[in-house]
């Protein structure tokens, strides 16, 4: 980008009745574009960009269009009643957003989850991760103008939605994790169906690579675009696939294994190239790894046993605080809960990956081309509703 402007235009000055040379200022060259909230490529989110020709010189995120005050609402409800509304920010990943909440409440109230319950939780969490990532991938496809890549993941998402519906009874908002375990046991025939769907899905991932990831046009659009170096990624505190695409193998499931994840053998998927392609490709690797994790979980799950610890309708523990994290589809998802000994939490702070990744948006967009805006924005794995809470 050049910051010096030598364009001089002739403008007619009415007072002087003659031609006067007016120097074009920098601001005159810039055009402000509002991306969102009624823009097809924004979601419930708005950011204004200023473009100089085809280059973005300024970016100002303006979230809050779907701010619902989840944290405030939590203070008025008891620990169990918080679950249905806490999963609203990201209904595609609702098992993960209630997972860390349940973990934190269990830490506060000293509940031990039965082993089978822990496994079912992990299975539901992995299934939901697939649902979210497929949805994300579908949108990424349409952001790059690839309509087939929108339809295929949206269709294949049904595989996991069907499984989740079989397991939890709901298709998107599951309200399945609960302090003390899970709401119900696995139905008969679940694991066979799950294994069948997983093995079909693994074949589909090859097709995704053929038509989308290995397509030269997609590579041209994403490779070398939006470079986020490891140092910058750490400085900005991004998380999830964005962090792992920047050559930092950090995954909460590995770094701080919760429930049964320390018994599962898996690798943290990361890439070194730090560009949009890496940020788009890491979720695919994640999905593949997630299939592998699910097979192990279904293999290792105890055949019988309790799935939910008995707890009183209004669980409460001693005063204290807990900060627990899980790895969601968008990275670390932490709950900081302060309890004052009553059945209602005193303060709940949700630390979500989307909010943290938003900081990278101006960092990456400034200096990029306008045509790269969709690929950079959506590769950040940013879910506006979750960021607003």
């Amino acid at each position: 980008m050049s910051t010096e402007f030598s364009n001089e235009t002739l403008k007619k000055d009415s007072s002087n009745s003659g031609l006067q040379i007016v120097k074009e200022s920098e601001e005159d060259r810039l055009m402000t574009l509002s991306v969102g909230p009624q823009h097809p490529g924004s979601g419930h989110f708005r950011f204004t960009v200023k473009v100089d020709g085809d280059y973005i010189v300024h970016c100002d995120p303006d979230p809050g269009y779907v701010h619902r005050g989840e944290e405030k609402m939590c203070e008025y409800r008891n620990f169990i009643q918080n679950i249905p509304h806490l999963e609203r920010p990201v209904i595609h990943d609702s098992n993960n957003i209630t997972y860390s909440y349940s973990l934190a409440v269990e830490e506060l109230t000293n509940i031990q989850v039965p082993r089978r319950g822990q496994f079912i939780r992990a299975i539901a969490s992995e299934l939901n991760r697939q649902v979210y990532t497929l949805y994300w991938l579908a949108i990424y496809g349409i952001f790059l103008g690839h309509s087939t890549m929108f339809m295929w993941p949206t269709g294949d998402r049904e595989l996991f939605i069907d499984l989740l519906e079989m397991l939890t009874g709901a298709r998107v908002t599951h309200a399945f994790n609960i302090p003390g375990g899970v709401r119900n046991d696995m139905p008969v025939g679940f694991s066979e169906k799950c294994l069948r769907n997983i093995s079909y899905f693994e074949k589909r991932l090859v097709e995704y690579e053929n038509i989308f990831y290995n397509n030269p046009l997609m590579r041209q659009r994403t490779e070398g675009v939006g470079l986020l170096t490891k140092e910058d990624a750490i400085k900005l505190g991004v998380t999830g696939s964005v962090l792992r695409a920047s050559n930092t193998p950090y995954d909460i499931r590995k770094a701080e294994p919760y429930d049964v994840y320390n018994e599962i053998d898996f690798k943290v998927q990361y890439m070194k190239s730090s560009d949009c392609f890496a940020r788009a490709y890491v979720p695919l690797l994640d999905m593949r790894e997630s299939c592998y994790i699910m097979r192990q979980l279904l293999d290792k799950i105890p055949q019988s046993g309790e799935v939910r610890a008995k707890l009183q309708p209004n669980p409460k523990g001693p005063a204290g605080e807990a900060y627990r994290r899980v790895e969601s589809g968008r990275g670390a998802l932490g709950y900081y809960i302060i309890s004052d000994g009553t059945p209602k939490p005193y303060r709940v702070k949700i630390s979500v990956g989307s909010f943290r990744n938003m900081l990278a948006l101006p960092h990456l967009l400034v200096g990029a081309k306008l045509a790269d805006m969709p690929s950079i924005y959506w590769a950040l794995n940013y879910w506006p509703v979750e960021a607003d809470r």
Partner: protein
Amino acid sequence: MTSAGGFIKAIESGSKHLVIKRFTLRYPEKKLKFVGDGYQFDPKRGVGIAGYRGRHILFHDKCTGCQLCAIACEGIAEAIGMVKVDEKWKHNKKSIMPQIDFGKCVFCGLCVDACPFYALYMTDDYELSAFTKEHLIYTPAQLAVKPKYDGSVELKIDDRGATHG
């Protein structure tokens, strides 16, 4: 010429799908089959029984009017209100039973978890459209009706792809 190879692979992958079965579920004609009879809860064991969480069914011969479902719903959706019913039951002295506003209900099923008398379950029925909001308020008498749901389609997976039949 890796880029040409990429194009050829993409074209091959795309044209391969021209002969694969379609995935779409043709909804109003065909409906999905669900596991079980809907979400139920066993208060003795303290754990639910897997099933679809559709609209509720209320067993009048078991409901005692204890209001636990309404209390459970209080901080969630506030969809359950207790109303007087014109029925005489020995176990329901106050003659009150839950009435559910499905315009507010979020189908979390925590009211089912709260019921200690096996009186409130959920069913497979999810087609709850109505022309007015008042019609979405189901009285205890309406909740007692067992809905007819005839979903029969399941996801089939074979060599030629996944399909809903």
